[in-house]
């Protein structure tokens, strides 16, 4: 009886997430070397059909989700995007389009707005044309993005620019802020690269120095005060120079879920890197049941899974033990300490690797994020060299 009660109260304690990320496709015109998609990209053939996604939207609304992030890859490559946006609006959900801005013309934008699109989040690779195109691996992308941003603002749709920051563009944060103002964006996300998946493969090509990080932080802090009420700036700091880990995903399986192009329901973008973890598919089990009881979600939810010294740590319900995927990638086990934490035996080694990589005057070239056929061998060698250096 007591066990049943405990079971019931634990289930009730898992509040539904406020927002869900829909990775409609992994197809994308851009090839950014820090892409949050997994190394094993889903092909178009594997993508869930329209009915599957409509079912996701219906279930999300019913369980109490309030916002949907339509993402990818490039979500606009899905021919059914307008239909999905329409269903989201019918169900009262707030819809956010996370886009490269490539391949959406004015007519399509109008159809999306008519269907109920609420907000656009546009990726920005850098504040200058040549560098932005180089990072995106797509010549002409910068100009197309600026044109798209103009169309968004002409229609009074709120615009967020999302800039991923690393050693090649950290010095341009002031120009990114100026660009956001010039384009009429209401929000700017300045997010230091998160080193999982493609970002980890490209870590030595991307890692900023401590000085670059501190300078970018100072710029953001000053601009936030100066631009209050005009531009909201969200800032995501990088892990490697920190002493304490971040509360990754706001705590595993507590605030966030992500649905992959194949319909797999994931606690975070990188969760598929964890071996031996079973991911339920939305076509086989109800979303609420997966969220509350799915193996992948229950595995690291809360604090019961934590080893020492996490169990005795006063911050365990602040950072929730940091990132499981990072613990796996850098310390070899998903259920050990995130090595960003200064209490980890690997902390000093990780910090030293970051300092060494960022000090390299001739960083390696990017391994661009591209589908397997064109880059198999490159990805393979990237991972091999990484596991030796880490």
């Amino acid at each position, binding site marked *: 009886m007591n066990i049943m009660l405990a079971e019931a109260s634990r289930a009730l304690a898992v509040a*539904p997430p*406020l*927002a869900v990320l829909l990775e409609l496709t992994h197809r994308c015109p851009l090839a950014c070397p820090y892409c949050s998609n997994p190394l094993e990209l889903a092909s178009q053939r594997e993508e869930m059909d329209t009915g599957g996604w409509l079912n996701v939207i219906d279930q999300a609304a019913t*369980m*109490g989700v*309030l*916002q949907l992030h339509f993402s990818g890859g490039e979500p606009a490559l899905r021919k059914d995007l307008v239909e999905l946006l329409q269903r989201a609006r019918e169900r*009262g959900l*707030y819809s*956010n389009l996370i886009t490269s801005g490539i391949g959406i013309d004015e007519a399509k934008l109008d159809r999306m707005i008519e269907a109920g699109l*609420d*907000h656009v*989040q546009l990726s920005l690779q850098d504040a200058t044309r040549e560098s932005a195109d180089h990072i995106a691996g797509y010549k002409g992308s910068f100009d197309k993005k600026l044109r798209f941003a103009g169309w968004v603002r002409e229609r*009074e*749709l*709120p615009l*967020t620019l999302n800039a991923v920051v690393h050693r090649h563009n950290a010095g341009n944060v002031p120009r990114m802020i100026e660009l956001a103002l010039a384009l009429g964006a*209401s*929000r700017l996300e300045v997010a230091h690269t998160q080193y999982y998946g493609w970002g980890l493969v490209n870590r030595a090509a991307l890692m900023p120095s401590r000085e670059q990080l501190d300078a970018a932080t100072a710029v953001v802090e000053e601009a936030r005060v100066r631009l*209050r*009420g*005009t*531009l*909201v700036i*969200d800032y995501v700091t990088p892990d490697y120079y920190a002493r304490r880990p971040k509360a990754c995903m706001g705590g595993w399986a507590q605030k966030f879920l992500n649905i992959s192009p194949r319909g797999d329901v994931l606690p975070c973008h990188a969760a598929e890197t964890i071996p031996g973890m079973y991911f339920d598919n939305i076509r086989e089990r109800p979303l609420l049941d997966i969220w509350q009881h799915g193996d992948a979600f229950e595995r690291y939810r809360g604090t019961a899974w934590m080893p020492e010294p996490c169990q005795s740590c006063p911050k365990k319900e602040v950072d929730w033990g940091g990132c499981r995927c990072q613990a796996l990638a850098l310390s070899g086990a998903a259920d050990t300490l995130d090595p960003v934490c200064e209490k980890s035996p690997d902390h000093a080694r990780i910090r030293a690797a970051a300092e060494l990589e960022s000090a390299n005057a001739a960083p390696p070239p990017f391994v661009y994020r591209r589908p397997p056929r064109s880059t198999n061998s490159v990805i393979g060698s990237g991972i091999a060299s990484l596991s030796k250096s880490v």
Partner: protein
Amino acid sequence: MSTLDSRSTPRFLPGVRLHHDQTRGQWVILAPERVIELDEVAHAIVQRCNGERSIETIVAELADEFDATPEEVSGDVQALIDDLIGKRILRL
């Protein structure tokens, strides 16, 4: 906190809307990358921010609704509206 002109008329920015969350039984503001939960007083304030009512009017109506004096509610109304302007939820 800056002092707002009590004759100004706050309104939602485009892309921001009020929504009744049936699952949690509460009103929320839906905005870019943000869900703001509203208690009864906050909801009473923001639902009046329609670009037609002045802050002065909102204060008077709220005082009436919650059986208080305008002086008692003015600070709360000003603080909430100012906070939501800073977050790019409302504009004057």
